[in-house]
């Protein structure tokens, strides 16, 4: 177990799959105690908790819907009650509903904005007073290259992910005086459930200088770095982890 995040308590949303799952494990392996949220699979959450126990790490899972502010509050209260503190918030929970704009229903738009952007607002708001009182804290928001340069057929997703960048920069300026850092990570194409059914994967790969999709662990490493004191003079930044896709 590493020492990079020793004695820190982290809260991760959407921790049972993909990038979120990799983030949970990376934080644990760097010494942090982690509470993660999930929406669907109790079983997956249980399996992860067992694996973390094997690693001699400490974690808890809580079923919660980040779209609801009351759930966000409940999750923060549970973190404080179980672990006594909150040092790191990783906003990660996100969905896609890809469609060309002409075919995109208002519901497709609203659901992606609600989970991906409003969810981050809810969790940030629920955590911020605790961090401000402690005069320390770190928030890492998972954005996307879609939010930086836009991707076709993802008007909803690109808008939410770009919104996250605005949220990150604004909040960084607002709470910097309280010793709280807020940064974003913008992954490119990463091997997860979200990209496994992409058609014409080879076309995407042609656009990536590294010639491959990224691994969730390669994003998680950057999140742990940004959450740690090694990044203590970094705030308001967007770090792309995309194999050169959006240079």
């Amino acid at each position, binding site marked *: 177990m590493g020492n990079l995040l020793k004695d820190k308590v982290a809260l991760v949303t959407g921790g049972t799959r993909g990038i979120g799952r990799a983030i949970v494990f990376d934080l644990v392996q760097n010494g942090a105690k982690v509470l993660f949220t999930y929406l669907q699979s109790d079983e997956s959450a249980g399996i992860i908790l067992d694996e973390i126990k094997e690693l001699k790490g400490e974690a808890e899972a809580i079923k919660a819907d980040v779209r609801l502010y009351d759930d966000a509050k409940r999750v923060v209260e549970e973190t404080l009650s179980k672990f006594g503190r909150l040092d790191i918030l990783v906003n990660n929970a996100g969905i896609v509903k890809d469609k060309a704009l002409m075919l995109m229903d208002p519901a497709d738009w609203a659901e992606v904005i609600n989970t991906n952007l409003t969810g981050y607002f809810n969790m940030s708001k629920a955590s911020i*007073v605790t961090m*401000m*009182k402690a005069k320390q804290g770190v928030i890492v928001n998972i954005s996307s290259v879609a939010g930086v340069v836009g991707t076709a057929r993802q008007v909803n997703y690109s808008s939410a992910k770009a919104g996250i960048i605005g949220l990150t920069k604004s909040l960084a300026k607002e709470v910097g*005086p*309280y010793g709280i850092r807020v940064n974003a990570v913008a992954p490119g194409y990463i091997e997860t459930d979200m990209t496994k059914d992409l058609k014409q994967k080879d076309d995407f790969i042609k656009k990536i200088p590294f010639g491959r999709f990224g691994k969730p662990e390669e994003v998680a490493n950057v999140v742990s770095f940004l959450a740690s004191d090694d990044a203590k003079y970094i705030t308001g930044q967007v770090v792309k982890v995309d194999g050169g896709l959006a240079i």
Partner: protein
Amino acid sequence: MGAWRYERGDLMSAMITDNIDKVIRAIVAEILEIEEDKITPDANFVGELGMDSMMALEILASLEKKYKIKIPEEYLTKVTSLQDTINIVKKIVEKD
């Protein structure tokens, strides 16, 4: 013996209450960076005394530390005058 304990509890409560407006006035003056005599019981913190949301949080955090209480976040918007603040603290102290 039971009656004595009841009186002592009352006395402690009274001591806290007597001091409370002086202590809170001093805390507010320090955080808002204004003279204590400008802080009348009903002067509006935001409209008249220049308080912003960060200062409201600092006031609540100082009171939590001073009186060893926990003030729920919902009260951030209720810290609007000296009298309101005193009432909030009394309410929470008495609950404990």
